């Protein structure tokens, strides 16, 4: 599975790990990962430690998640990006929308 999710013990944080290429082929599974999450979830962590590549459709998916999680009030952190992934996120200035660590 290129996408794995786990919930914190208190049920408030949902972590989504994307493995390999984060592009249009992961569209459905990425959506499934958060759309069926419990209503208790208030914080999302996108763990990209095993993501090798990220394209503009992945940026679109992140925006969809942000919208799902409440738009401007969404709490989403993107973590452990490699330098290529980090570069694509910063070209699009996604630091302004997500907390990237």
């Amino acid at each position: 599975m290129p996408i794995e999710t786990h919930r914190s013990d208190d049920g408030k944080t949902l972590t989504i790990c994307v493995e390999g290429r984060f592009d249009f082929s992961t569209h459905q599974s990425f959506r499934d990962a958060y759309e069926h999450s419990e209503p208790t979830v208030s914080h999302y962590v996108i763990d990209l430690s095993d993501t090798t590549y990220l394209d503009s459709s992945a940026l679109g998916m992140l925006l969809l998640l942000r919208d799902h999680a409440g738009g401007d009030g969404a709490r989403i952190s993107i973590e452990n990006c490699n330098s290529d992934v980090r570069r694509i996120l910063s070209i699009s200035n996604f630091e302004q929308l997500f907390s990237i660590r």
Partner: protein
Amino acid sequence: MKVLLAEDSASDRLILARLVSRLGHTVIEAEDGTEAVELFRETQPDLVLLDALMPRMDGMEAARQIKALAGERLVPLIFLTSLSGAGDLARCLEAGGDDFLVKPYNRVILEAKINAFNRMRALHQALSHQRDHIRRQNQQMLDEQRTARRVFDNIAHTGCLDAPNIRHHASPLSVFNGDVLFAAQRPGGGTLVFLGDFTGHGLPAAIGAMPVAEIFYGMAAKGFGAPDVLREINRKLRRILPIGMFCCGLMIEADFKHNSLRVWNGGLPDGWLLRAGGYRVAIPSRHLPLGVQEPDQFSASMTVLDAAPGDWLVMMTDGLPEAPNSAGESLGEEGVLSVLAGLKAGQEPFEALLARMQQHTGKPELADDLTLCCLQMVRAEAPEVMPDKIPESALTGPADWHCVYELREQTLADFNPLPLMLHICMEVPGLRSRSGEVYTLLSELYNNALEHGVLALSSEWKTSPGGFSRYYQERTRRLGNTDGHFIRFSLGHQPREGGGTLTVVCEDSGDGFDFTEYSDTVAHQQAASTGRYAGRGLEILRRMTRNLKVHGRGNRVEIVYDWWFPDAAITSGA
């Protein structure tokens, strides 16, 4: 199912024909190979049973001809043979047979084989139908794309992309890959260029491109500057695009008169300003792409750069650095940079980048999904008189009027009144063909009143290297406090025989300037020769108008501008 049976032995034929028809199939009988080929042509059977050894034409030759006649259609061909040598049987299959049936015939095996081939035939037929369907659909889609492209061209047109100082590569169908490239001359001179890259491909990207084209060309022609156009594009895309779809873009506003550039990059790879002497300035993405943020959060703040005639601007979509070579490796932004760093004096970046791409991909043709545009700074030319495209409507409209338009306080910082005032003037019959000149008059008056009057900025700063950027920083800072200030435009127009006269008075709340030197010809020539901007601005106004007067303490400038119909002689003679 129709079965063609070719067998020279009458008794064998009779037995087999009965067997096959009992299985529920129609049997067509032939006595030799020649007849078999003829009957095949006439009756188009679904399956052929063919004796290998027959007079006139043997089964091998008949098989070859039948397979040729069948073309793409799969017609299973089963050899009937009493041969049993492996070589003979192999020859049957080489001649185009799909299987063989060894005499004497076994009913069960015959039935099983006919059924198996019938299944294969049905599968092949289904696949061919689907393939034909896909082929037709694809053809239809390509036709539709070509038509859509023509519609898009009517809206987007090429603008001034064909100008001698612009080089660009964009595939004809690039809009369906989400790439858009627009360029327009601004009414008062200067050029606006927008390169955009929508997320996604195909129809959604193309549909999103349509309003962007309309906004860009519509607003550019009305004299709006890059920030206004960007704000409007973002507002529109935010409203019409689904969440997750957006447009990365790079906007350039080149001002050839003042040798300055305003640039904005949201999500595209670094653009580059290439100055003389191999000096490079990156134009990195500092903003979110268009269509992501709500209008109140969107920032259209532009970076100001000094430039000189001959400098090149390079912008590209990510298809260029990301294009793979045969090993799947991309050039990367480092690769692009190394091409730009290796440019020799006088070498055009456009040619060098294209050559590098061809070398990298090993293909003479560039992929559809990369767009590259280079713009060269040129010396400012006098505004052109635009050919009037709609002469009839240009002959009716208000000709005798007067209006006063005053901007106060915070509005001075927030609002650009030039498009509105240009619009009022363009209602005058015949004046539309002078929109470039009128825009220049209005913008020189307005900028003079705002920058040197209200904001009291010193044009001296602009003479030092890099001072232009400092000037603009200070301009932005001072726009934060415009309490108690105003700029008042009084516009008036009177018709004259064969033309008209436009009078504009621009007054501001600033301290004015010592204008006595500008009222006498000798001093004004000295001012022009020192190259000071304020002198240049007034010099432009003086050259373009019948009369220029500075009143009050130098905070009230009046111009009188005469114009004539291009065909005034004909009109007055009629």
